[in-house]
């Protein structure tokens, strides 16, 4: 149904008896009383940028074309995203709607765009289209032809619609339902509409500092996607929220006037940039938690903070090993598999890359971790010496490698020289007698 016709039909509906009256919602800054109407589903269209499916729709649009909720084919795609967004929950709600009808009213604009209740509307549509099956099971689903909702006045501008959508969609009780990335996209969208951080905080029931943090994180998320050549494919942010939140916190600590936890004179631009780029690779391989923090958390237990030599050698090893991995470009992949869903293709590109990089990533991190442990134990000489002795004693002197490795003799010479120097200085040492 076209926009003008939808407006006409909804206006006609408003002249009729409402389904519920006296519903208070905050509209344009004041509490206003609205009525709920029973709206035939064909008068309504989905909101494609609904906070629940924003990342999927944006990723899809970046690959193919802009979705038009009025177009039947596009509508099916939006319905697919809505269904997939929370399959298990949808099945439960579906049964609930069949048994009890729509208990929670929705919210639609004067031209029939569903602001709140897209998922419920999808399920009502689905149930009604399958009414014969339900009838066979002894359920009368005629009530599912309608969507009960408040119809907003025609003067509702884009900002107000965004505000209402966010308030309803991201209200405290609903938050858990959402894919974690959606909240970041929501803030990005709201800021595009020129809504101030303070107002966004109120809509999302968050602190203003949290909104500022979310803003920084979505910028970092965009940078991460650009780094991989995945601009706008937000579905590739799956399972990256944790480390990206951590990385953002590190950047904040290291930028500005510098961080005292770092035990060397790092450059707040160039070295922090190198750190971010390296972290992006570990995030791509889905490192998180303790292992991820080991790279650059602002503490003495991180490779970045401990020493310039440690960090530089870790970084150089990373560049030489992980940096040399070859893979098809996104453009090449797009051309070779044009029919496939880009999100899935890129996921398999990441999986392939991780498979090739895993040994290097793990090996470099393990080596640096062991060096870090040694540096942290620098004042425990016996412990370090025992560790070194144990390592040397573990060498299999009967293996062929023991005799043919060209670097082994050189390394053993270095060990010999160093231990000799240490022994000499220990013997020379005369404690100060006070």
């Amino acid at each position, binding site marked *: 149904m076209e926009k003008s016709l939808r407006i006409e039909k909804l206006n006609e509906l408003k002249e009729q008896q409402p389904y519920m009256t006296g519903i208070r919602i905050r509209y344009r800054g004041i509490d206003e009383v609205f009525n709920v109407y029973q709206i035939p589903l064909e008068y309504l269209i989905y909101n494609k940028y609904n906070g629940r499916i924003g990342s999927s729709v944006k990723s899809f649009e970046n690959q193919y074309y802009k979705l038009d909720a009025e177009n039947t084919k596009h509508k099916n795609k939006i319905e697919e995203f809505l269904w997939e967004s929370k399959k298990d929950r949808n099945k439960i709600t579906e049964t609930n709607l069949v048994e009890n009808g729509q208990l929670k009213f929705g919210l639609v604009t004067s031209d029939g765009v569903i602001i709140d209740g897209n998922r419920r509307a999808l399920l009502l549509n689905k149930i009604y289209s399958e009414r014969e099956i339900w009838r066979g099971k002894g359920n009368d689903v005629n009530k599912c032809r309608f969507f009960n909702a408040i119809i907003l006045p025609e003067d509702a501008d884009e900002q107000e619609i965004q505000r209402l959508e966010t308030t309803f969609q991201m209200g405290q009780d609903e938050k858990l339902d959402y894919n974690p990335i959606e909240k970041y996209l929501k803030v990005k969208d709201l800021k595009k509409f020129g809504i101030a951080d303070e107002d966004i905080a109120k809509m999302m029931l968050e602190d203003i500092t949290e909104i500022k943090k979310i803003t920084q994180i979505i910028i970092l998320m965009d*940078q991460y996607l*650009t*780094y991989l050549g995945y601009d706008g494919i937000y579905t590739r942010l799956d399972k990256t929220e944790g480390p990206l939140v951590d990385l953002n916190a590190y950047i904040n600590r290291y930028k500005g006037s510098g961080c005292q936890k770092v035990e060397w004179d790092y*450059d707040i*631009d*160039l070295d922090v*940039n*190198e750190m*971010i*780029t390296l972290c992006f690779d570990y995030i791509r391989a889905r490192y998180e938690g303790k292992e991820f923090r080991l790279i650059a958390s602002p503490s003495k237990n991180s490779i970045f903070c401990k020493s310039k030599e440690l960090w530089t050698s870790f970084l150089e090893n990373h560049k030489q090993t992980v*940096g040399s991995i070859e893979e098809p470009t996104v453009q090449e992949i797009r051309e070779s598999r044009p029919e496939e869903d880009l999100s899935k293709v890129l996921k398999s590109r990441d999986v392939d890359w991780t498979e090739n990089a895993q040994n290097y990533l793990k090996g470099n991190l393990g080596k640096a971790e062991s060096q870090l442990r040694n540096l942290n134990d620098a004042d425990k000489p016996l412990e370090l010496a025992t560790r070194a002795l144990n390592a040397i004693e573990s060498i299999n002197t009967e293996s062929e490698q023991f005799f043919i490795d060209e670097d082994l003799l050189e390394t053993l010479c270095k060990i010999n020289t160093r231990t000799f120097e240490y022994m000499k200085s220990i013997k020379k040492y005369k404690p100060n007698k006070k």
Partner: protein
Amino acid sequence: MTQLTVDLDEENNFYILSGDVSAALTNVSVKQFFLNFLHASIEGDVIKVPFEKQEKEIILKKIHKLLERYSFSETHSKYMQEVMNEYYCEEENFKLFSKKAETIKENNCEKEDFENFSHSVAKNLSKRKLYPLQLLSAYHLAFSQNSCNFSVPGAGKTSIVYGAYSYLKI
């Protein structure tokens, strides 16, 4: 060696880098720095780095720092050299100045100049006699104009400051 030329579009507030742009951008860290730290746009064979009027020099310094870190050869357009002449002179002078300060710190200073300094201190700070290393430290302080002294207690930091002051005030 990768070579980049830095030019200035003063009307639109951009630094424009041209030359071996694609070679430079094969380094992922360089590319990331241009995009995320300098908010640059890559347009074909050139990189455009925007700047606000008040941070014109800061951004140039960042570009310079980047090119130096990754050993890129940096040249400047004629126009750029004219406009930024003062900045480059200051940069060059600072380099020379830092180098000289370092030679003093390493006790490798110009003998004659140091003797003049020592005479001046002896004459103008007659009630205190500075030890040789205190004198060198005072000379370094007087020359550097900005410096920090974290010597242990009793090393003579006060005398060093007096020495530099007595020389500079005349």
